[in-house]
């Protein structure tokens, strides 16, 4: 009886503590606080979209959308005859992205296949950190490498290449996205179950035949998604192109001459002395918005590919 009384006392104390005390208040307040923190990332997205839309709108009050989309020249700095046709910047971005993809996709896929299908555990353990370091090297370092090493090297081989060109930054952007393709494609290949591989090998396929006809197709959705994501990274890459690509907006498809991408235009204006409120100042938001739409579309495409074509084992 006495012990029971004691228990009741403890129980009522505990109940008091939980119902009115600090603990119960904490239990109610904390989820709200955490939700607010989670909301920050949503607010950030809204902030980005809102910023870009509002400032782009201001830009389009001064320059018509039609001029932005259809004119073929980008001469914002001209005092007498400024022209804001985004096409040259798009062409510049396209050239860089194309060269980067041509460099990165074959090498990236080859390394991914090598790691997942051929390499021994020891080689894998050696290669992983190398790729991690390559992925962790800041883009400013790659930019320096492009300007002071790759460009002179290429110019020694092709003398017609200008100091600033599309090839050197394109190749180096490709190098930068290789680790991304490797790591995501290798994940996709590793998720193909071994029983499928063994089935192919038991039917007499060589390792290459098994890889090409069985493992690769089974992992295709993940591999495609990795390529799309890497291309999206290449489109948004800024410093390498700013340092080694020059600052000449041109719609020509010539790869040996100086060019300008959407990203490197934003950098050029930011480092220059275009004052707040000028048309040039607002133009970086219009260009940034265009860039944002491109990368967003690529990211959504990647998500859709990996969801749509995911094979379930």
């Amino acid at each position, binding site marked *: 009886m006495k012990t029971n009384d004691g228990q009741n006392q403890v129980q009522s104390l505990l109940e008091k503590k939980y119902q009115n005390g600090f603990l119960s208040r904490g239990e109610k307040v904390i989820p709200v606080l955490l939700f607010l923190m989670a909301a920050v990332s949503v607010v950030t997205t809204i902030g*980005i979209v809102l910023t870009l839309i509002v400032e782009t709108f201001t830009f389009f009050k001064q320059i018509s959308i039609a001029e932005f989309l259809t004119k073929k020249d980008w001469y914002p700095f001209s005092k007498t005859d400024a022209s804001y046709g985004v096409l040259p910047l798009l062409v510049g971005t396209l050239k860089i992205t194309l060269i980067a993809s041509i460099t990165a996709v074959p090498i990236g896929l080859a390394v991914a296949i090598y790691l997942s299908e051929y390499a021994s555990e020891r080689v894998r353990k050696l290669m992983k950190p190398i790729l991690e370091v390559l992925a962790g090297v800041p883009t*400013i370092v790659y930019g320096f*490498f492009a300007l002071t090493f790759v460009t002179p090297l290429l110019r020694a081989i092709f003398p017609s290449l200008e100091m600033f060109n599309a090839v050197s930054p394109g190749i180096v952007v490709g190098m930068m996205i290789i680790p991304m393709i490797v790591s995501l494609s290798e994940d996709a290949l590793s998720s193909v179950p071994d029983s499928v591989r063994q089935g192919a090998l038991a039917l007499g396929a060589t390792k290459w035949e098994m890889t090409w006809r069985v493992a690769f197709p089974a992992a295709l959705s993940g591999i495609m998604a990795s390529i799309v994501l890497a291309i999206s990274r290449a489109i948004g890459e800024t410093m390498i192109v700013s340092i080694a690509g020059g600052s000449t907006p041109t719609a020509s498809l010539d790869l040996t001459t100086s060019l300008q991408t959407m990203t490197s235009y934003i950098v050029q204006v930011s480092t220059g002395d275009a004052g707040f409120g000028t048309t040039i100042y607002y133009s970086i938001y219009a260009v940034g918005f265009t860039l944002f739409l491109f990368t967003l579309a690529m990211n959504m495409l990647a998500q859709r590919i990996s969801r749509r074509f995911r094979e379930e084992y």
Partner: protein
Amino acid sequence: MENVQKNIHTDEMINKIPVRLLKNKIYKGLFLLAALFTFILLVVLLARIFSQGASHLSWDFLQNFASRRPEQAGIKAAVIGTLWMMAVVVPVSLLLGVGTAVYLEEYAGKNRMTRFIQMNISNLAGVPSVVFGLLGLTLFVRVLFLGNSILAAGLTMSLLILPVIIVASQEAIRAVPKELREAAYGLGATKWQMILRVVLPSAIAGILTGSILAFSRAIGETAPLVVIGIPAFVAFLPKSVFDSFTALPMQIYNWTSRPQEEFHFLAAAGIIVLLVILILMNSVAVWIRNRYENKY
């Protein structure tokens, strides 16, 4: 008759085997070559930078401010500035990142709202850093009147690396076994007590590993700083987070974009300092990962 036909096929198959095996070997060689290429790439990259920058690396280089004369230029302001910026980035991004991860993993219901937040985070991770710079320029520099201060840059960088920290923390929290949570509940813990005293201590290694990698990204990221308008030529040390400053990648960018080769050597020396910092941070991350790996 049928038997003969079968024999022909077998012959053909046997004849083809050497070619198939050769093909297998060639492809294996090509893949190995690609793997070697990435290795050589890393070696050349590092060798090139060290050979250019090592001779300019000295105590004076670390102690001096930026200068128009290359022989007197140093990176003191840039290193201190980067440290100041990280003093903003680390607490802000860690608090928001881990808080969001705890909410999504422990509190959020499996509903449309949660899916929306999750999708939003993965899309945010794909936004180019230069666009984050535009956000920082409008929101922090102009609207909140922070100017090109440490706080403006630090907050922009925090938002930039937030998705990385959230995803890493979510994975770490998800890896904590259910039994531990149930044991905590069984002992009478409330939900928040369980999270604070059981889940977070168990997940801390994973959270830190992912976060350190995110911090190294913030240290090396240049584009947002350029867009915000962080100056590259600073000859004083900041006294508070509201002061103007310069950061390591800005200083390197400034030296790289000068035409004189002497400044390129300085840029290489600056890159060495940057890489040493990043390698140290990554080593800490790897050490934490190995130390606490497979605890369960």
